[in-house]
């Protein structure tokens, strides 16, 4: 290859390295162009340095990893022993050897959480979560952190991601436990709608633990999932018919569903196991409702007719009671009442006036309708906490269903 020589003063090309530059007459400043030999040499040295650096870096990384693992092992032991402060120190040491190692950072976050250093914990967890958003453990820890700091929306969201997230090992049991924790959180925070949704989901994967089943049944009652509560308590009773709590739970569920006979049966069974005033009260209420209910099967038409008239009468009394805030019966003229209510009362009075007619299905239905109409007008006026006639309220609720 032809070599190239350049004058460094005027930068013109010249023929020989030691000749005088024909353009500017300079002699001592002549450069030789890059020859393949020089390039080859440079690349050769580069390859050598590359190899040496590679070996050096590999040894370094191996040593770094060993040291990191050593500190991590010590930290895990300390954390298991409950020595959080020293565990944090060791996790930090481990992390200084492997900043990108998620296990080290996660361990540090766990130890910090245990040591109640929540701000730092959260920073590490959020960091880790940005790299692995579906990790179950990260979302779970963040959920716990958020719950502890009262950020319930965040906590619920993190729990949700943790439940559906990625876990190692016994996945199903973890998910179940997480759902139970979430249920506890929702219960404590009074978020009944979310609680109900979670209970429905839990119903699909009901745990075997009877204690948990009792608790969930109670929560179902609280969130008005009466059907599910009834079947849950029923399954508990199938396994153990003498389960007092399950009897009471099923009784309550059936009561709320309007199955007062079944409810009474459950309460009576419970009473046989353990008698107390609350159960007696509930049984008495059931009896009064059953005696008032005109739709009850197995009673004669005559009895139904009688009950329908009683229903009108009690609805009328209750309406007049509710109309007067002092609780005394209303004695004023009907014209003073709202027109719809006055008209319903007038209908009731007409139905009750004179001798009762013939007992027919139509008459029963007409009476029931009058009573319902009157009650619907009066209901908004009555106090929800202390209704004037509890059996009437339940019967009316059943009729409206």
């Amino acid at each position: 290859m032809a070599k190239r020589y350049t004058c460094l003063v005027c930068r013109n090309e010249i023929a020989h390295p030691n000749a005088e530059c024909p353009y500017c007459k300079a002699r001592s400043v002549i450069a030789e162009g890059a020859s393949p030999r020089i390039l080859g040499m440079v690349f050769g040295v580069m390859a050598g340095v590359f190899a040496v650096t590679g070996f050096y870096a590999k040894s370094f990384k191996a040593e770094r990893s060993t040291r990191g693992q050593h500190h991590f092992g010590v930290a895990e032991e300390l954390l298991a022993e409950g020595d959080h402060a020293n565990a944090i120190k060791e996790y930090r040491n481990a992390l200084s050897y492997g900043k990108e190692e998620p296990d080290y950072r996660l361990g540090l976050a766990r130890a910090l959480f245990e040591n109640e250093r929540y701000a730092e914990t959260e920073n590490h967890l959020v960091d880790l979560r940005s790299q692995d958003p579906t990790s179950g453990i990260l979302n779970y820890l963040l959920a716990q952190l958020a719950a502890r700091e009262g950020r319930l929306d965040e906590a619920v969201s993190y729990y949700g991601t943790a439940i559906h997230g990625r876990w190692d090992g016994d996945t199903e049991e973890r998910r179940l436990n997480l759902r139970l924790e979430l249920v506890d959180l929702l219960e404590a925070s009074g978020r009944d709608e979310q609680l109900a949704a979670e209970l429905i989901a839990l119903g699909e994967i009901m745990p075997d633990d009877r204690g948990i089943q009792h608790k969930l049944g109670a929560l179902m009652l609280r969130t008005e999932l009466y059907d599910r509560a009834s079947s849950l308590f029923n399954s508990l009773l199938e396994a153990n018919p003498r389960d007092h709590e399950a009897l009471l739970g099923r009784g309550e569920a059936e009561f709320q569903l309007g199955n007062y006979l079944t409810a009474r049966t459950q309460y009576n069974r419970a009473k046989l196991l353990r008698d107390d005033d609350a159960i007696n009260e509930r049984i008495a209420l059931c009896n009064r409702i059953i005696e008032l209910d005109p739709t009850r099967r197995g009673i004669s038409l005559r009895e139904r007719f009688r009950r329908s008239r009683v229903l009108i009468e009690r609805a009328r009394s209750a309406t007049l009671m509710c109309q007067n805030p002092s609780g005394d019966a209303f004695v004023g003229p009907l014209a003073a009442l709202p027109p719809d209510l006055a008209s319903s009362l007038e209908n009731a009075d007409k139905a009750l006036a004179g001798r009762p007619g013939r007992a027919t299905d139509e008459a029963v239905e007409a009476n029931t309708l009058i009573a319902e109409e009157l009650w619907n007008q009066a209901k908004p006026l009555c106090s929800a906490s202390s209704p004037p006639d509890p059996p009437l309220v339940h019967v009316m609720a059943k009729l409206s269903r």
Partner: protein
Amino acid sequence: MNTIREIFAKLSTMGKSGPVLDEPQRFLLLSIIIGIFSGLVVVCFHISIELLNWITIHSLAPGAKYLAPLWPALGGVAAYLLVFFVVPTARGTGVNYTKTAVYASDGYIPFRSVLGKFATCTLSIGTGNPMGPEDPALQMGAGIASLLGRIFHLTREHMRLIAPIGAAAGIGAAFNTPIAAVLFVMEEVMSAWNAGVLGSIVLSSVSAVVVSRWFLGDEVLYQVPEIEVGDYSELLLYAAIGAVGGWLSALFCRYSIMLRGRILKLRERRRLWLPAVAGLTVGIVGMYAPETLGAGYQVIDGALHDRFAWNLLLVLGMLKLLSTALCFGCGTPGGLFAPTLFVGAMLGGGLAGLAQLVWPLSTSSVAAYVLVGIGVFFAGVFRAPMTSVFMVFELSASYVVILPVMIANTIAILVSRRMEHDSVFHMAAHQDGLDLPSIEDRRETPALTVEDAMQRTRDLVVSDRISVSEALEKIESSNADALLVEVRYGQWRWVGKRELRRAKDNGDEGSSLHRTMKMWPVVRTYPDLPLDQALRKLAIYPALPVTSRVNPSFLLGTLTLADVHRAYGITRQEPKAEASSVGPSSA
């Protein structure tokens, strides 16, 4: 793209015919090679520091912690002895050394200084001295570049540019921030924005970072957590951090340089034991606050993650500040980059905690304040505003914090500059007897433009319809050598006094210029052009018309050599008779 294709084409025909690569192509290829070599060396440097660190202050051996306070002293004195007896070229800051190479020694940096920096800084930083590896890495990169430039026989012009290319590679690989490396070299090493060399600097920086990541992994220096910046009222807090950071950085520069000056006045032999004293002090401080030992990246990471209470952050920042100033003053090898970031981070985090006590409405995350603190202190010490902003951006990989960083950094620079005119490197250079340029000096010496020199009159302008005698009268009254004539829309010509006189002598005094005179074309100039560009044109033309850029026939003024002289303050003087007495004796 074409250039790259040409390079490959020439490489494929290498050795078959003609020269392999011409100078610009060689320069580009060389930039990549420099980046790779610098990256490799910096990787080794980084590993060596870490390994030494593990052997000394982070030893797992039982009882090793009792030896820990002695290591910085031993490392410091060993490094200083090496500098003193073996590699004196490894002395001083890498930035100034590289700048000296650029501006005073045609890019020449002895390779021995690379080896020296490697060894001495490994010894000092690896044993826990509170210095950073970035500045030495910068010098190592520049030294490698200089060696390769010599091997490739670059021209002197390119040799001057090669050192900054290596410097960018070195700092890029050490700090893992390619953009900040490019900007730092432009602002601090070259002290100018040179578009010609920018491509090469970027290439080398990127190659070095790629090599560094190849071997050390993609892990960033700090794991920056999710950043939240509060509402705009918090910008006041950031501004306050900027002001405090600027003030503190100026104090740091002043007193560390003052200490360095006093120590430099001691006899050289006496200075030998000072790094040991500094190291021992650092070691003792490190017993109680081990966070202050070494470069401290992990501690900054901790501050970003809200690991420390605000008062502890401030204490750590102060301790690091004092120990760094002591080591820098005593000549312990190492750079100021990492300690500056450390102090800034602690300051930002500490002030954030303090602010949250005073102003509970503050909602920004601590990480945001820590990042702002890093930028603020860096900007205050090095006076590199662009680098300080982009560095934070590269570290956080988020634009969220950019607005507070820009505000705080600007305030920090203003405050710091008001207290101390120069950056720490510039002050150190002055102390060493070097007069190196800085970007601030250049900014303070504004370049003159044509507008500053031009005459806003039409004294030298005539129409080509006037007679020769009228033109002659005008040129003689204005005492000029030539007149400018607009012959057509936007086309200007000039006519000289001698030619006019000749025409008069020939009896053409009554005829108009366009019929009689031969007039030469003249180029236009514009008021915003630098005066030196116009000066080059004045070497060819006696006068220049200064016109509007949008309307070339709209004359704004005229420019002559005399106007340029006047603008530069040069008055024409007649040679004096006694001038011969000045200079070599005629006898």
